[in-house]
């Protein structure tokens, strides 16, 4: 199970520009169990967004947003609510946020930080989509994770090895930052690439040994044994 925690509400509201209309999407999979998805997330996020002056065009809980193939079909059924929104706030792990970003031509913002993939993982090649950095940056990178698409995990654009949109590591591999650039260009948000991002706290996720992550399994197994 994936473990995530809700971002501070101010941070989530801060992604949005004044008066933007929002579609709220929450995952009914692992995130629901963590309290970062499901109805619980909608109950927490809706008032915060509305207080900040953002009208909700709709809110929806879908099971397992990481199943990218199904997300597109499910969202199509709520066509008008989704189309009417300027942006989508997604309460799920980083995999779910990225799968929604791939099916919609809209800015997609994360409501949670992903801490660990735990044992059972999200459906869409999860390990390769979300690095569990614990400080989700997808709001600034067009819903494409710089830690997993760039071998160097750079946070401020491509390195000098990027050429014709390809990575220096292997021919044919797309440069992750070219993808992020193209996505932000298509969303009209290249301004996000002019901002400085301080180094991340690696103790939130990236470099924390698995044994020290906030995985609840040892506790679950302990409880099971206790009977």
């Amino acid at each position, binding site marked *: 199970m994936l473990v995530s925690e809700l971002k501070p509400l101010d941070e989530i509201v801060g992604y949005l520009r004044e008066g933007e209309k929002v579609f709220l999407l929450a995952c009914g999979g692992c995130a629901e169990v963590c309290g970062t998805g499901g109805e619980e997330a909608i109950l927490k996020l809706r008032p915060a967004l509305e207080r900040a002056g953002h009208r909700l065009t709709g809110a929806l809980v879908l099971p397992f947003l990481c199943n990218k193939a199904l997300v597109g079909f499910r969202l199509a059924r709520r066509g008008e609510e989704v189309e009417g929104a300027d942006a989508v706030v997604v309460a799920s792990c980083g995999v779910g946020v990225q799968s929604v970003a791939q099916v919609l031509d809209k800015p997609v913002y994360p409501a949670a930080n992903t801490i660990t993939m735990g044992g059972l993982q999200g459906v869409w090649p999860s390990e390769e989509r979300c690095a569990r950095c614990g400080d989700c940056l997808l709001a600034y990178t067009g819903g494409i994770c710089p830690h997993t698409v760039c071998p*160097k995990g750079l946070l401020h*654009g491509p390195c*000098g*090895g*990027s050429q014709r949109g390809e990575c220096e590591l292997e021919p044919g591999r797309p440069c992750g930052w070219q993808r992020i*650039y193209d996505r932000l260009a298509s969303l009209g948000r*290249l301004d996000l690439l*002019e901002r400085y*991002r301080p*180094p991340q706290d690696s103790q939130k996720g990236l470099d924390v040994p698995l044994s020290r992550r906030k995985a609840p399994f040892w506790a679950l197994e302990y409880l099971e044994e206790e009977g």
Partner: protein
Amino acid sequence: MRLRERLERGEFVITCEATPPKGTHVRPALEAVARLARYVHAFNVTDLQSSVLRMSSWALCALIKEEGYEPVLQLTCRDRNRLALQADLLGAWALGIENVLALTGDYPTLGDHPGARPVFDLDSVQLIAAIQSLNSGRDLAGNELAGATGFLVGAVVNPGVEPLEPHLLKMKLKVKMGAKFFQTQAVYDPKTFLRFVREAEGLGVPILAGIIPLKSARMARFMNEHIAGVFVPEEVISEMERAKTREERVKRSIEICARIIRAVRPLCQGVHLMPMGWEEHVPAIMELAGL
């Protein structure tokens, strides 16, 4: 006159790469520096270039400084986390090193220790911010330092890369965070370089055009295929092909370098030479270029 003053006064600046030894014998590197000192204002000491193990950059920088020449410390994010980067910077300043060139670094698999763990704890923009922080008397975590640094910070950019736009945005961010000069990847096509200079002009920061002497037509074709952002025009390659002996190739290569330098001279504030083992030919290039 120091590099900082030359750049500030708008003078034409010449920098040249110096490569630390693969081992402990520093004499050959220092002798090469001494022979070129007449033509060069500052020496960039590479930091495990192409991820190939060599002596540390700061050590050769300190030795170059001791001999009375001015070094530029090249520093990559590949091998050190934010603690080690800052520690090396404090040490470098104490050793009298005043200039730093902040780079991302090549991926370890490109070098001779392909199994090495890549670090990239900071990226090049964050490294520039870290140096600025040390310059202001605080570390990256905001703690006060007993003695600040006063580094001149440089950065790199690849003028021939396609598409250029994402790289220009990053360059802009590097300037915003404190980069005071730029050294570029090798230039062979002044037209491409001019296009870049026009785009970057607004940033108002000195640019030093990269110069790598071609050793053969094969090297040119290799670079076109494998080195990001390097474009050697076909007519330059055939010029090299027409040279049949080693002597002729050297002569042709020197002519090509001098011609590129003359072409880029009105467009930028200096050149950065990367001789790649051809240090002995640098004097001829400089004389033919009129520098």
